[in-house]
């Protein structure tokens, strides 16, 4: 199917999802220089917060180098054209964080819930819509349920006031056909003026292919990260995706060479580890596990001597969802006890 001439709005995740890969330690200078580079490359929307969203600063997920307020205050005034978005997970962040973000000039709020729990987002989506923000409902781990269930939950968020709904492949588990089914059903059944988005992870190497499938099925917002900097094997690498869109003659509005340069000159040099599909990241995609579990599982392996892959497979079997990072150390301890290692 041709997407020639189709308008695709790209949304960079390197300064939010990328925080997972950097253990939330991106410096203010790095934030500002990458955001500025992206702005100059024509990126319309850039997400900035702790990896787990507003209020994510915690012992459980990791304390960041700087607070959400500091990051947002540093980046927003420097933007010429790009708008800044913030993620909010009800249960972690609250409407107080949302108001703070709005006051600092955040344009887009993305309220994220597990794909079956949309009804916890009513107060946050409602408040953001009331404040006339660009309000996005973000359904995570969308691979775990049927297209019909995603639609049911999307309708709740639409009803609370979201003007855009995301199908979010948090585990990087989905394949293009599934993306098409889910986005296609949302496109057919949601209001025609509700925008649709797709957020991919590259754990099975399908980030670009899935994003193209999403656009073909009716999504117009696509998340990715410059140089793929994100949890797990990273997000859809944006510079690659832009090149593909360019060849498909879609209307993306990004300067390809400039975004390639941001990736190569700014983002890759600051990576703590190469963002690649190592066996643990591959396990996330294969077993359907939340991508930000990756580094926690690797640390648990180092500390307790239980293979990260074994931990991740078991966490997948137990049906863990985003935010349950505490279960990784807990499980590692239990498995280590069983093996007589502790």
């Amino acid at each position, binding site marked *: 199917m041709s997407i020639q001439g189709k308008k695709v709005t790209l949304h960079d995740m390197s300064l939010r999802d990328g925080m997972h890969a950097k253990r939330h330690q991106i410096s203010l200078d790095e934030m500002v220089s990458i955001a500025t580079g992206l702005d100059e490359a024509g990126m319309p929307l850039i997400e900035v917060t702790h990896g787990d969203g507003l209020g994510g600063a*915690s*012992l*459980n997920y990791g304390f960041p180098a700087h607070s959400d307020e500091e990051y947002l205050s540093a980046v927003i005034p420097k933007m010429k054209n790009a708008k800044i978005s913030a993620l909010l997970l*009800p*249960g*972690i962040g*609250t*409407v*107080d964080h949302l108001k703070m973000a709005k006051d600092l000039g955040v344009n887009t709020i993305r309220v994220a819930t*597990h794909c*079956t*729990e949309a*009804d*916890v987002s*009513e*107060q946050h989506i409602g408040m953001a819509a009331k404040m006339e923000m660009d309000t996005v409902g973000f359904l995570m781990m969308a691979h775990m349920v049927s297209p019909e269930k995603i639609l049911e939950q999307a309708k709740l968020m639409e009803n609370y006031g979201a003007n855009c709904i995301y199908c979010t492949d948090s585990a990087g588990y989905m394949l293009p056909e599934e993306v098409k089914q889910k986005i296609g059903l949302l496109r057919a059944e949601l209001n025609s003026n509700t925008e649709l988005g797709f957020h991919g992870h590259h754990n099975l190497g399908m980030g670009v292919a899935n994003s193209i499938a999403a656009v073909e099925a009716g999504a117009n917002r696509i998340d990715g990260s410059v140089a793929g900097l994100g949890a797990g094997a990273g997000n859809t690498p944006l510079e690659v995706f832009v090149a593909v869109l360019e060849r498909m003659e879609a209307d993306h509005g990004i300067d390809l060479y400039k975004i390639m340069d941001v990736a190569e000159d700014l983002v890759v040099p600051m990576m703590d580890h190469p963002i690649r599909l190592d066996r643990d990241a591959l396990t996330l995609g294969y077993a359907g596990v939340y991508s930000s579990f990756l580094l926690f599982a690797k640390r648990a392996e180092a500390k307790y001597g239980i293979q990260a892959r074994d931990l991740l497979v078991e966490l997948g079997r*137990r*049906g*863990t*969802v*985003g*935010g*349950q990072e*505490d*279960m990784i*150390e*807990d499980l590692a*301890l*239990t498995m280590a*006890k069983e093996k007589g290692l502790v």
Partner: protein
Amino acid sequence: MTKKLKAAIIGPGNIGTDLLMKMMRSDWIEPVWMVGIDPDSEGLKRAKEFGLKVSTTGVDGLIPHVLDDDIRVAFDATSAYVHAENSRKLNELGVIMIDLTPAAIGPFCVPPVNLADHAKNLEMNVNMVTCGGQATIPMVAAVSQVQEVEYGEIVATVSSRSVGPGTRQNIDEFTRTTSGAVEKVGGAKQGKAIIIINPAEPPLMMRDTIHCQTTDTPDQAAITASVKQMVKEVQKYVPGYKLVNGPVFDGNKVSVFMEVEGLGDFLPKYAGNLDIMTAAGLRTAEMFAEEVKAGSIELPAR
């Protein structure tokens, strides 16, 4: 004089019914009234079958009988919106109010930590915080009783089926109330609370992780002993309160991993988050009754 205090339960839903079933086994509290607003509700019918008097017109239907039936304690399992009125009306008649809603008009009560103080002071309204608070604050307190806790953080993971519409519509109230109580009752200088809802089937048992950051190097032996002792205290009213792992020490971080299995009275066993609320509420009323019997407090004169 009989030692049992007579009680009313307001709200015949899942929580109210589970509370009733626990109360029928109590040596200290006798359930007499169940208060609802829908005459056709299953909960009221069930209460009637158990031999309770029922009001179908809310607390107003109970008020005329409070003195005659010598109602001394009421449990409010309705909502924060109506609790204030319920409490005012019943407090006026000298009824002690155990608040299971998020209203939190009265002081927070986490039985093994501060119930004894509330009972001795005859607090006429005590609030049971949140399910996550009941499950985790004893652990924060166990650490802060040993040494200063600079920061306390709790993560409560509950099954989707055990989270009702009220909590879902105002999930911020959970995080706000719980983090406040981690400070006020748990003794952490700064508190944070996180709630995760998991839809897995079969439903997962309530899980709680407690992280404390101590100001100075943690005294591992003393903290471990304090945590184990506190687990035993909670097990007195919630036998399924289980230390799965920990305390684990990492620098000044102390982590404890808990599982809470309910008794399975009316609520299913996996809903340990709801069970610990009803059990803590009942335990609270029982301690008031014990103090009355011991003569250390006197109920309002009638």
